[in-house]
């Protein structure tokens, strides 16, 4: 079963210099009960992807083509009222800065009660459920915690409160945009272990965005690699991390400082720049930076299935 299916999605922003193609023919699926990671160069369109799913694109942005199917409905065709209904109930989100999701002037208990406004539960039932949820994310003294305000928690605790609130209504899909970036390594690991546990409990799917490849490797079942608004490779985490087939994916993994065995002052990078998204090259988007470029790269590259579930948008993936 597939919870979220994105098919040939195209998103553009109108800018002074013309139309900026932020997402170009993006397709991938989030299967039921799987954690799918999204990685890619800064500016490759990860946040744009999330905003398109949530119906929250900036005013100058629009979905030009393609579909986003969530539990049978095409989100690109829904009105704002229905989208609002889905957000927070069936699809919920956790962001890097939990303060953005929390209301500073309401107690945590009050906010957690508000999320349950459509549940039909009594007030005390709601509070009991909130308390149980806080306990599940290991907030000490959960009952007292309900009366506290967001700023009275540390960064790590706040992120766990945000996760508790996001999972309160047992959504089918949790979208997490760099939720652990602000946490130290011990809390980061505790948070991803917690996420994995809750995801299994609630049986939801997760779309998880992070630049931390170690966290992706540890948490995710599948990975989607994006470059300049395109999905250049996708597959299981093992397939992509152990045998990347797109040159960008390979280079990205090689640049991880965690992979440099000796200590080095000069970290590896991918030379060159991301193309101007207002004038996308007609062929492969990565060609200008690719060290394996051939003439055929000037044509639109095919999506090559290298193995079941493992797809790379590169002509060279075909040859082997």
């Amino acid at each position: 079963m597939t919870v979220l299916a994105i098919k040939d999605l195209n998103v553009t922003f109108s800018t002074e210099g013309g139309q900026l193609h932020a997402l170009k023919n993006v397709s991938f699926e989030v299967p039921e009960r799987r954690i799918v990671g999204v990685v890619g160069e800064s500016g490759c369109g990860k946040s744009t992807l999330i905003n398109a799913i949530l119906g929250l694109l900036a005013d100058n942005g629009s979905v030009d083509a393609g579909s986003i199917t969530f539990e049978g409905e095409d989100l690109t065709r829904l009105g704002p009222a229905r989208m609002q209904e889905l957000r927070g109930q069936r699809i919920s989100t956790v962001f890097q800065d939990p303060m953005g999701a929390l209301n500073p002037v309401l107690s945590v208990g009050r906010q957690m009660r508000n999320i349950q406004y459509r549940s039909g539960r009594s007030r005390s039932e709601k509070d009991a459920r909130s308390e149980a949820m806080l306990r599940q994310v290991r907030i000490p003294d959960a009952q007292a915690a309900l009366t506290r305000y967001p700023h009275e928690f540390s960064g790590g605790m706040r992120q766990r409160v945000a996760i508790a609130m996001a999972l309160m209504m047992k959504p089918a899909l949790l979208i997490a945009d760099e939720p652990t970036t602000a946490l130290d390594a011990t809390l980061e690991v505790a948070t991803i272990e917690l996420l994995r546990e809750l995801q299994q409990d609630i049986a939801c799917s997760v779309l998880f965005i992070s630049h931390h490849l170690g966290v992706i490797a540890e948490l995710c079942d599948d990975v989607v690699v994006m470059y300049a608004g395109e999905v250049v490779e996708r597959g299981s985490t093992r397939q992509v991390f152990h045998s990347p087939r797109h040159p960008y994916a390979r280079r990205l993994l090689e640049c991880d400082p965690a992979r440099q065995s000796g200590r080095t002052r000069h970290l590896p990078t991918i030379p060159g720049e991301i193309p101007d998204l207002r004038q996308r090259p007609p062929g492969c988007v990565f060609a200008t930076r690719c060290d394996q470029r051939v003439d055929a790269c000037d044509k639109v590259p095919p999506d090559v299935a290298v193995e079941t579930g493992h797809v790379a948008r590169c002509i060279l993936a075909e040859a082997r």
Partner: protein
Amino acid sequence: MSGILEVRDVEVTFEVGPLMRRRSILGVAGVSFDLHAGETFAIVGESGSGKTTLARAINGLQGISAGSIRFGEERIDTLGGRAMKPLRRRMSMMFQDPVGSLSPRMKVGNLIAEPFRIHEIVDKNPSVEVPRLLSLVGLTPEFADRYPHQLSGGQARRVGVARAIALNPALIIADEPTAGLDVSVQGEVLNLLNDLRERLGLAMIIITHNLHVVHHVADRMAVMYLGRFVEVGDTDEVFRAPRHPYTAALLSANPEPDPDKARDRIALPAEVPSLLARPAGCEFHSRCPWVAARCKSEAPEFVQGRTRRVACHTPLEPGARPPELEVTQ
């Protein structure tokens, strides 16, 4: 090597709570270290342990309640905003929140030219400097016409770097300079800072949660917990043999980019103590897997070894495992 920065017993106090029940907390609770020209010093530690507050204090954006800070020959913690201004040319700060620290109504080009205006530098032409700085941080000239909200998180971060290096400072304090960047751009930013360090003898304080980054770029590192340094040493040595239990737990937690790697972690209880109720004795004892009776009542001294300082009654031997072997998978 000459000392460029000398931080001694610095404390920062905050007043918190409702008016009637005001209480003070120590955000920074007595920190000392020296920094030499050309040196890179990393500060790591728990979220909320006081890293940003310490950085702001050094930069003069936050008053200190005890201690002293010297920059070059000059004592700077007693200077007011005005007297601080010329010094800020030589000491620049990259802020933790990249988008929030850029004024939303200014275009990128103006944001990058702003330091020249603020410091009334007339011998530099912004129409030359802006494209030069943009290209140094890997952005094309067309970005000069964008507003901050039209940038991705990573692009905003690069604009922050361009601003920080605009005036060729002698010291850069970088608060999470690469959070939100992919590994390749992260490498570019760090290489860029490192090049400047080599070329200009720049000193750098880098605050980050990314331990892999620390390992590669920092000469020395400090580990902070509840407003204090609990361990300071040469980066290589600290990674090879952490001596404070919090450092050991932190380094063991570092996620590795291999889905099949066996993980052997020192688990810590997730409850971080509040600054309003600092634990008695050693302040880490409430989470320490090695806790002993003495730790609950007696605060450890910050012991100075040859190259290492550790605040622990019984510093760890290399490769030490927690007594009850509480290991998570």
